[in-house]
């Protein structure tokens, strides 16, 4: 294929994926742009919420980066007991919607024996809870990037300057992708009204929720969403412009040995303590607060029945979303692999989309489905719809991971394949896919947990009779006994912990690169 044709195909594919990603949000945005609205967008309250939102986004990015980057480095570079399961469990904070984590913290604050702890509140409280919740994004980005360092690089830096030098080298290598992931974490927090509502902090997400659900003013909501998208583009584009250059760091195909975790006595202990501490503060403590009522009135049986009723639907929605996200992300990553402009465009658009409240796409799809013929209901009004929209929503998360992984593939592998006449599908299945394995695993995991926590999309699109467990928790929590809600949350977490523990055995199936 000629160079010109390749370029055209590249932009066609990237454009197609971006169009599919933007598509669900378009109906409301288009109708917004065509309307005169009686309510002005830019009010004092809205401008204050913009400031609050920007601080929230920055705060969440910084907190998640400051914890996620060093923790990811330590977890990747040093050996400690139960390393692989503990690494997987780092995804748990993303599983629960921030509403529930905040309720857990505020329950704890009301208990006498924890009254000495400062209760999270206001903007600081939101940054604390959401920052901790988003740690997994830069954590996994760092961890995956560390796997592209070779043993020679690590050994050389260890010889020259000890483990301080190793950490410095690794941090410099992983920082670009970790910063992009932290930026993504901050962006994701912009569309979540959960913590701001509980902690009394007025963000743009709350303004948009108010426009949708209290004022039923879709035009106003649409314009607010466009403003939010504009801000996100303005702030993320420069960072992406700089950071993307370092995202594409191909590794020479002559890898004598990839780096292996090192049994450093002190740093291994610090790594173990770090992962445990983040798990403890990020998920165990708020879950304990959330589940306190279960101690007084456990309703495990009833909760188990609910879990049983909703398990398959939950798996279809979240697993389907993960598959969709990974497929589209891999398409974008491969298509944009030779063009930094294509990568920048893709990521900038996807970041802007991620900042949008989920209701924008969900209501848009609902409207399209309403006007579509009945024979398209399998696409527009089925469990597939939920999986598709959730997958597209979290496409940026998978895209970052896949871009980094694709960039680390050596071009010599494909040259060798061309010389030997290895057909593209065969090369893909035998070589490319296995070498993208860890990126695919991380992407599947992150999108699954993020999709599970997205109540709004699921609630607006799930077909009658198909309810996911997280939505079920939110529909019963208003007036169910607190013990039931607490038991549901506990069982939900336990199921995911078991799934993750099972998933931690998957690497045994992948060929090990080093004996």
């Amino acid at each position, binding site marked *: 294929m*000629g160079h010109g044709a390749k370029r055209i195909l590249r932009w066609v594919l990237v454009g197609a994926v971006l169009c599919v990603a933007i598509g669900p949000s378009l109906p409301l945005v288009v109708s917004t742009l065509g309307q005169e609205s009686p309510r002005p967008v830019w009010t004092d309250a809205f401008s204050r919420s913009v400031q609050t939102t920007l601080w929230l986004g920055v705060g969440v990015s910084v907190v998640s980066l400051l914890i996620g980057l060093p923790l990811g480095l330590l977890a990747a570079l040093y050996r400690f007991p139960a390393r692989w399961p503990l690494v997987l469990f780092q995804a748990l904070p993303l599983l629960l919607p921030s509403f529930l984590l905040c309720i857990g913290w505020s329950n704890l604050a009301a208990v006498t024996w924890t009254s000495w702890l400062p209760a999270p509140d206001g903007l600081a409280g939101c940054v604390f809870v959401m920052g901790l919740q988003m740690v997994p994004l830069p954590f996994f980005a760092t961890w995956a990037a560390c796997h592209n360092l070779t043993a020679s690089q690590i050994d050389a830096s260890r010889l020259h300057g000890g483990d301080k030098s190793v950490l410095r080298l690794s941090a410099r290598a992983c920082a670009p992708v970790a910063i992009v992931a932290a930026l993504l974490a901050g962006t994701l927090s912009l569309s979540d009204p959960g913590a701001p509502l509980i902690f009394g902090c007025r963000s743009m997400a709350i303004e948009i929720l108010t426009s949708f659900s209290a004022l039923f003013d879709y035009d106003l909501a649409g314009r607010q969403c466009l403003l939010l998208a504009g801000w996100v583009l303005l702030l993320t584009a420069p960072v992406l412009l700089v950071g993307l250059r370092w995202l594409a760091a191909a590794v*020479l*195909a*002559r*890898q*004598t*040995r*990839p780096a292996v975790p090192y049994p450093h006595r002190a740093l291994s202990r610090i790594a173990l303590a770090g992962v445990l501490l983040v798990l403890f503060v990020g998920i165990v403590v708020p879950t304990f607060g959330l589940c306190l009522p279960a101690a007084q009135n456990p309703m495990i049986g009833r909760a188990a029945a609910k879990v049983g009723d909703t398990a398959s639907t939950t798996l279809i929605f979240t697993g389907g979303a993960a598959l969709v996200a990974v497929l589209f992300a891999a398409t974008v990553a491969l298509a944009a692999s030779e063009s930094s402009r294509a990568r920048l465009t893709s990521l900038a658009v996807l970041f802007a989309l991620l900042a949008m409240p989920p209701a924008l796409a969900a209501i848009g799809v609902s409207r399209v489905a309403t006007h579509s013929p009945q024979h398209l209901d399998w696409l527009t009004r089925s469990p597939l719809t939920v999986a598709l929209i959730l997958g597209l929503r979290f496409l940026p998360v998978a895209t970052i991971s896949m871009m980094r992984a694709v960039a680390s593939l*050596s071009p*010599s*592998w494909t*040259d*060798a*394949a*061309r*010389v*030997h*006449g*290895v*057909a593209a599908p*065969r090369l893909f299945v*035998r*070589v490319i896919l*296995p*070498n993208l394995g860890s990126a695919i695993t991380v992407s599947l995991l992150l999108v699954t947990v993020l999709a599970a926590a997205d109540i709004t999309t699921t609630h607006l699109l799930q077909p009658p009779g198909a309810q996911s467990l997280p939505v079920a928790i939110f529909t019963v929590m208003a007036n169910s006994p607190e013990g039931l809600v607490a038991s549901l949350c506990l069982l939900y977490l336990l199921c995911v912990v078991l799934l993750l523990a099972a998933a931690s055995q998957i690497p045994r199936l992948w*060929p*090990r*690169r*080093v*004996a």
Partner: protein
Amino acid sequence: MTPFVRCRGLTCHLGQQLVLDGADFDVADGESVALLGSSGSGKSTLLRVIAGLQIAEQGEVLIAGQQASRDGRLLIPPHRRGIAMLFQDLALWPNLTVAGNVCLGLAGLRLSRDECQNRIAHALDGCKIPELADRRPGTLSGGQQQRVALARALAMQPKLLLLDEPFGGLDLITKQAVLLQIAQLKSQLGFAVILVTHDPVEVRGLCTSLAVLEGGHIAEHAPMDDITANPQTALGKAFARAMQGKG
């Protein structure tokens, strides 16, 4: 006699830089030619153009008398040219075993399973690494990886083997052993060799002729004895002195 490889008027850019400027280059059947040139002179590019991995904007490449590419068009794909290549970074597929690498390398030939297994065994035996069949490249030493790459290339039974500075990082003894291996296999199988190198040891160990790439074209191409006796280019003179052990 028609040379196995005939290149005429090759012009190629790398980005904005002109690397090949009307280069003509012939390689006869069974010839072992060392391709010399300063860094950035276009040696690897010339190899890639001959292999079909890159297409020259102008000029033609004929392989065994047939047009393989011409003026920016690829007419014969890389895997049908009877050419194998050892890359600078070896390009071994890290997740496959040694046998897996050789096996996948036969994909373009569409052999039966038995034939494939025979070729793999033969190639590994020929490179003296049958015991490494189930190991993965990441667990091998540099020299062993070289032999695996060689086995993968030779399993194709190529007419021409392209070596793009593949011996970097090897100690002298290992390098000599691998060169000897290639020379023995060459005499058995009769393939031609183009070796891109800066090292006189490698040239002495394998090659019978020498070509110098300078200013985007082949400035000098002659049998080793002729070059040694009467070098025309500065690089040719430097090599002649090195070959004669005069430093």
